[in-house]
């Protein structure tokens, strides 16, 4: 997550210029859990990582068995690396790099997230990298 150190106005301006998409509000999220957002035909999983006071976002598709599910996954850490575990077969993915932490040859695309005044923004320029 990126720390927001600017004043509110500068940030909103930057958000408008850099393709940031507002997906929802902090209050909608469960603690240490995710929600799935629809943007055009894209499904984005966004996680409120309360225990670290951080936000993460990634593709909703688990690449292991091609299931739209990761937003319902459990967040956690492996040696300090923040991750999400898929509910189907417990494949874990780094929420920073998208790498599969079980050593499998599959990975996910992650997106930058920002929280500004209770609103959650996701930056989607990497969306074309998703393998679906």
């Amino acid at each position, binding site marked *: 997550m990126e720390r927001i150190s600017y004043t509110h106005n500068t940030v909103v301006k930057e958000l408008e210029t850099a393709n940031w998409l507002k997906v929802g509000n902090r209050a909608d999220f469960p603690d240490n*859990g995710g*929600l799935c957002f629809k943007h055009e035909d894209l499904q984005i999983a966004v996680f409120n990582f309360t225990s670290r006071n951080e936000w993460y976002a990634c593709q909703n598709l688990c690449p292991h068995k091609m299931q739209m599910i990761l937003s319902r996954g459990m*967040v956690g850490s492996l040696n300090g690396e923040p991750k999400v575990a898929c509910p189907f077969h417990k494949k874990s993915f780094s929420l920073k790099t998208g790498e599969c932490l079980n050593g499998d040859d599959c990975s996910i695309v992650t997106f930058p997230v920002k929280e500004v005044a209770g609103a959650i923004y996701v930056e989607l320029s990497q969306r074309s990298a998703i393998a679906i």
Partner: protein
Amino acid sequence: MVGYKFCEKIRKKYNKDQFEVSVYGEEYRPAYDRVHLSAYFAGKTADDLLMAPMDWYQDNHINLITGELVVAIDPVKKEIRTHKGTLDTYDKLILATGSSPFMPALKGIEKDGVFAYRTIEDLQQMEAFGKQAHKAVVIGGGLLGLEAAKALLDMGLETHVVEFADRLMPRQLDGQGATILRMKLENLGLSVHTSKSTQEILGKDRISGLAFADGSLLACDMLVVSAGIRPRDELARQCGIEVGSRGGVVVNDYLQTNYADIYAIGEVALHKEMIYGLVAPGYDMAEVVVNHLSGNRERNFSGFDMSTKLKLIGVDVASFGDALDVNEECIPIVYENKMKGIYKRINITRDGKYLRGGILVGDAESYNMLLQLAQNAMSLPDDPAELILGSRNPGDAHASKQGLDALPDSAQICSCEGITKGDICKAIVDHEITDVAKIKKVTKACTGCGGCTPMVADLLKQTLEAQGKQVKSVLCEHFTYTRQELYDLIRVHRIETYDELLGRLGKGDGCEVCKPAVASLLASIWNDVILKQSTIQDTNDRFLANIQKGGSYSVVPRIPAGEITPDQLLVIGKVAKKYKLYTKITGGQRIDLFGAQLHELPLIWEELVHAGFESGHAYGKSLRTIKSCVGSTWCRFGVQDSVGFAIEIEHRYKGLRAPHKLKGAVSGCIRECAEAQSKDFGIIATEKGWNLYVCGNGGARPQHAQLLIADIDKASCIRYLDRFLMYYIKTAEPLTRTATWLNKLEGGLSYLYDVVVNDVLGIGKQLEADMEALIANYHCEWKHAVENEDFRKRFKHFANSDEGDPYVQFEEVRGQKKPIEWGSIL
């Protein structure tokens, strides 16, 4: 086997340039494992039983000649000749010709249907013949005879054992022990006849029965003779090698015959008037000869302890040291429990200081420890009775493990391979071993009879602990506690949330291992609404439904004991039709509705709850169903109302969260149609009340439940169930079914019986109170969820749209729907 072991041992010491080795064998197969011969009937093939495959001999430069019988030895020219006329010379000759079954000179022994029990060929012939036989008799109630009887039972034949002596296994067991063994075997369907001297085998060409000296007859159409062994010394005898008056090649302490270059090992060797019919002494002889070949005169054969432990037709039997104490030099301590079929006897010296030997029937768990105490003349506890009764003080539960500590390094742990405690500990340190499999590989311990495996595992644990290595089964990287420790800590600190626990006792952010484990603990302790902490629940618990392929969920309403009214069936049918759900009867006698989307779950449940259904908890690590058969209300065989009791039990424990799922069943009579013995707890009706079975499961490794207590009334049954379930919930590791838990529980079933029935820990009342508290806190999770707007909101796929997931797709099969295959959304 002993011949093979010799090859293995000599190749460990010498390469092909130092010793050229040729092996002649009459059989067409290389050496095979006769100890486990009855496994052939349990589905192992002849190849599985080989000591080593053909390649092994090649790889180790051993010239193996099978199917060639040596017919002459010239001890002066040092030459042998085979039945094919092949001549070969030797520097040293080792006779490992073994023994053949003793076939008494009975009238009619040549008839069809009479077999020996010795070679794979014998077994193959028995197997072929057994297909058209119905009733088989084994002559000989010793070790091998009972093995043969097992083989016949496995073939589905009515099986009888006839023994000349007044009891089974007369060489190993005393009268009392043999009686218990006999009871247990008779329960397993074996008929036993003792003090019977067979006089004649009846029948024309084919056996039709046996006639005994007392005038009685026993009809049968198959006979297996296991009346002891005779050393195969005919070759030695013909060639001037000295043999004993009752057979066997006479050897000295180095296993040399009267010709110094000819040795004899195994069952053919007669050492100090003793023939050793077990593998372990044979292996020891092989070791002595290999040493002797290199000029080592220190290693000799000085007789061998004939202690043995084995499973006979599923019954543990062990005898060790001076088991029978025929000279009455000791004072025996005896424990006998006819109800459970357990007999234990230990012979203590008159001064009370040492253990000389003993007998174990029905429960031989303490065999290894007792054998070590006897062999190493170790000092005994103040009250030697504790050795077989177990300490009454639960704090001493680990006493037997501490006993391992006291063993000298020279103590033999694996007697088949002659491996000492020192060898094993050294291997663990030198090879940095952390599991038993590696110990087997490096030291060969546990590879013979396998009886020492538990001790080797304990040694590993101790050695690792002594090295300061972590052997505790901690939950994961976030909590350095076991599940049981966390259970206690949560209660002591009255912790109600995962975050609080992580903050106080853990580190990091948690993971998919500790979160559901802690969620389960919190539910088992407080039984609060699990949705309050939805993100620490596995997805099934989080959405109170079972996730299925494709991302849809299934719905399972509770149908206690499988009893359902036509109106309730109509409701399920209507709901399934309305939401286009696939329906199937489950293994637990209820109805599963598949293919619901996340947002449909509250709508479906609202209708079910309204019609009076409750959550079936199919999604939780919790009580599933209590299966029942129809019982005395309808069934002409039923002796008790099994459906009524099953419903009562299911309502009592519904919603109970445990380390793993829990299944139960109640059968209305001994026919057991509810399959209660395959459940975590099973109740079977008897004329007098109920029998309670515990710790069974199906799954990948099926295990039968074991009888905890018989003929109890309903109230006692519920009391013991309360205690049993709470004790399991408190002490099991995460995701451990009751069967695995019991397998790991020190002291096994008898300890569990002590805790649950005898209340030796004094926690019975507490366990019952804990269970009452959980039951009082029961609520239907789905009723709660559909009535709470906050919870309902969570059941949707998109946070910013009310539509369902477009990727959840179905296709049709047999008139219903099924999800599309993995990955076909691409």
